[in-house]
């Protein structure tokens, strides 16, 4: 264990810090969940890429910088610390990208990773279906083979940013008559392929942040399949590991929220409940604990290890701490909590943050499912009746 950064790591931190200071949008962008805000966020992705900051851990050949996970964490710390925008590209760079790196052919890597890092192609995840939420193995949408194409029929739902995004990565039933986890394949598709209908869904805050996707004889080339036919479940579980375990929610984002919460508390200190004071101290403690753990996971992966079911512990922790922090802020704001904009015209980011934090315990595998996984796979408790 060594709690100091190397000179090289410090220099890297200084480099990203000064780039962000010079390039970060001067004013907050409109929310990513609507058309206008989405376009602003994509423009920002392209600007990041122009500085080669799209995804620093990827090889230079794919538009990255070939850096290690500690440097990635430093990047993320500076990124969120500077107040830079949310990443429109997150499903691509944090979920699909690492999966392609692990399962893709060389041809697929060249074809998909470079435009991904460049922010030219924005990806949506298309796994959930009306009948397959927590029980993802109940997927019904089919992609049956017809020569060198798959023909997709069925429906996906809750696909984040699919109202506006370019491509999707989906899990489809490619083997006729197959059941549950078997016979599924992981297929990438252009969201503008004929036969796909997107129907935006309004989220709690009113914006069309996710969408339903209807597939009607949609033809997708077989070379868009990642890994072998029928291996979709295994590939999806690797993606889910990245989602829950390391990449999707780097600690910097929550540490930035904790710092804003401390600042908010200082303003409201005189009339704050004693419980709020403890909640604020806990916000710092929990976000720090999450950061230490993430650094340890990163070091473990760098030493050749991998993330297993303990990713579930992470997911429970970050999603519930985010909700707790935003709830505390809402309580501190009192009567101003419901205002979308404060008197001074600034956005009430806490309200947006609280609403968004309510989805954390639901998406990426609900926290009930994560607790099941923890109990059964990490603790070894019996898998009999749910009771």
């Amino acid at each position, binding site marked *: *264990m060594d709690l100091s950064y190397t000179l090289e790591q410090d220099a890297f931190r200084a480099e990203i810090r000064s780039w962000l200071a010079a390039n970060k949008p001067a004013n907050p962008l409109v929310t990513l969940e609507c058309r206008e805000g989405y376009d602003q966020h994509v423009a920002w992705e392209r600007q990041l890429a122009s500085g080669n900051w799209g995804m620093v851990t990827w090889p230079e050949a794919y538009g990255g910088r070939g850096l290690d996970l500690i440097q990635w964490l430093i990047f993320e*710390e500076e990124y969120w610390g500077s107040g830079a925008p949310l990443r429109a590209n997150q499903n691509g760079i944090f979920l699909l990208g690492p999966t392609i790196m692990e399962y893709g052919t060389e041809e697929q890597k060249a074809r998909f990773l470079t435009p991904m890092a460049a922010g030219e192609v924005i990806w949506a995840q298309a796994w959930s279906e009306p009948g397959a939420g927590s029980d993802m193995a109940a997927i019904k949408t089919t992609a049956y083979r017809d020569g060198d194409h798959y023909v997709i029929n069925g429906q996906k739902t809750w696909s984040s940013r699919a109202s506006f995004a370019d491509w999707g990565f989906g899990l489809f039933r490619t083997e006729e008559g197959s059941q549950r986890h078997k016979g599924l394949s992981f297929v990438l598709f252009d969201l503008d392929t004929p036969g796909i209908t997107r129907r935006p869904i309004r989220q709690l805050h009113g914006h069309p942040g996710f969408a339903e996707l209807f597939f009607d004889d949609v033809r997708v080339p077989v070379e868009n399949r990642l890994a072998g036919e029928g291996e979709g479940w295994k590939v999806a579980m690797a993606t889910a590991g990245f989602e829950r375990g390391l990449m999707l929610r780097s600690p910097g984002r929550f540490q930035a929220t904790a710092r804003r919460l401390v600042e908010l508390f200082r303003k409201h200190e005189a009339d704050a409940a004693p419980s709020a004071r403890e909640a604020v101290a806990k916000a*710092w403690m*929990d976000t720090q604990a999450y*950061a230490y753990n993430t*650094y340890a996971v990163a070091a473990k992966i760098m030493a050749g290890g991998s993330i297993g079911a303990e990713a579930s512990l992470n997911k429970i922790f970050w999603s519930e701490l985010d909700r707790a922090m935003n709830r505390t802020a809402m309580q501190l704001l009192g009567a101003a909590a419901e205002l979308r904009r404060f008197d001074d015209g600034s956005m009430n980011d806490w309200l947006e943050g609280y609403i968004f934090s309510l989805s954390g315990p639901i998406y990426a595998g609900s926290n009930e499912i994560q607790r099941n996984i923890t109990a059964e796979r990490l*603790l070894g408790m019996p898998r009999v009746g*749910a009771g």
Partner: protein
Amino acid sequence: MDMLIAPERLELAEAVRDYLSGTHGPEVLRRLDAGPNRDPAIWQGLVEMGLTGLLVPEEHEGLGMGLLDAALIARECGRAALAEPLVDSAFVAVPWLLAQDQTDDLAAIAAGEQRVLPAHTINGWQADGDGEALDSVDPLRNLSALPADASDDPHLLDLGALMSAAQLVGLAEAMLDQAVEYSKIREQFGQPVGGFQALKHKLADVAVALEFARPVAWRAAQAMDDGAASAPVHVSHAKIAATDAAFLAAESAIQVHGAMGYTYEVDLHFWMKRAWALGGAWGSRAFHLKRVDDAVIGGALAIGPEHTFA
């Protein structure tokens, strides 16, 4: 920057775990509870492993290891609910003596011939001291009245709090293990009770609390070893996180055991009572929360994503 504990550093702690699980199981706790609660043979075994000299520098016949190594072993002492005052003497008092350049007794401490039992005003008692006896709920603790010359040195308090946190991690881990094991064998409604989701989720929450207490404890130990100015805040964080995890583990474990858990016969109570004891020792929750609060809300510590290791 490296938050991973090197595998070779874990080896000694694993050896201690194996040794204690082989020689210091629940039957030993029961025996100590029934008779004299200290046993020279157990102490001698710890001495022979070199543990009394773990933090004693090599020139004084010790192993010259660091506080992180000690914390990892303190966790094993917690896991075994060890009653002998190894942690207090070798991991709390020794580094405190070293910090004050009091080296005269170190060789005798390393050899196991002498013990130094720390007395700090924050506790209001001394463990394994010679004063008038006090009655603890933990049958294996030997508490006595605080001596008049007790210290109020914050550095001693930090060492005591850090090592309590490490023991609490081990105590919580042991209680979680006991609860999981019991849930597999106790059957009701025709199935092991561990198959019921209400119990799964309860114990999953303990696993989460532990996962995010452990790195805090190790980071605090390293910060103390490095002599970081911010170390006391990290020690307080560790004490709070480990205490909360241990109380949650205790309450969840007794619930999983049903009435069995409420008996003196089931061994869980030894761990639970030690957790209650150490949870309040070396600074209450309020004391440690205030230190975090002063640093974080008071502004003494740089916070935010760029300051993870401040």
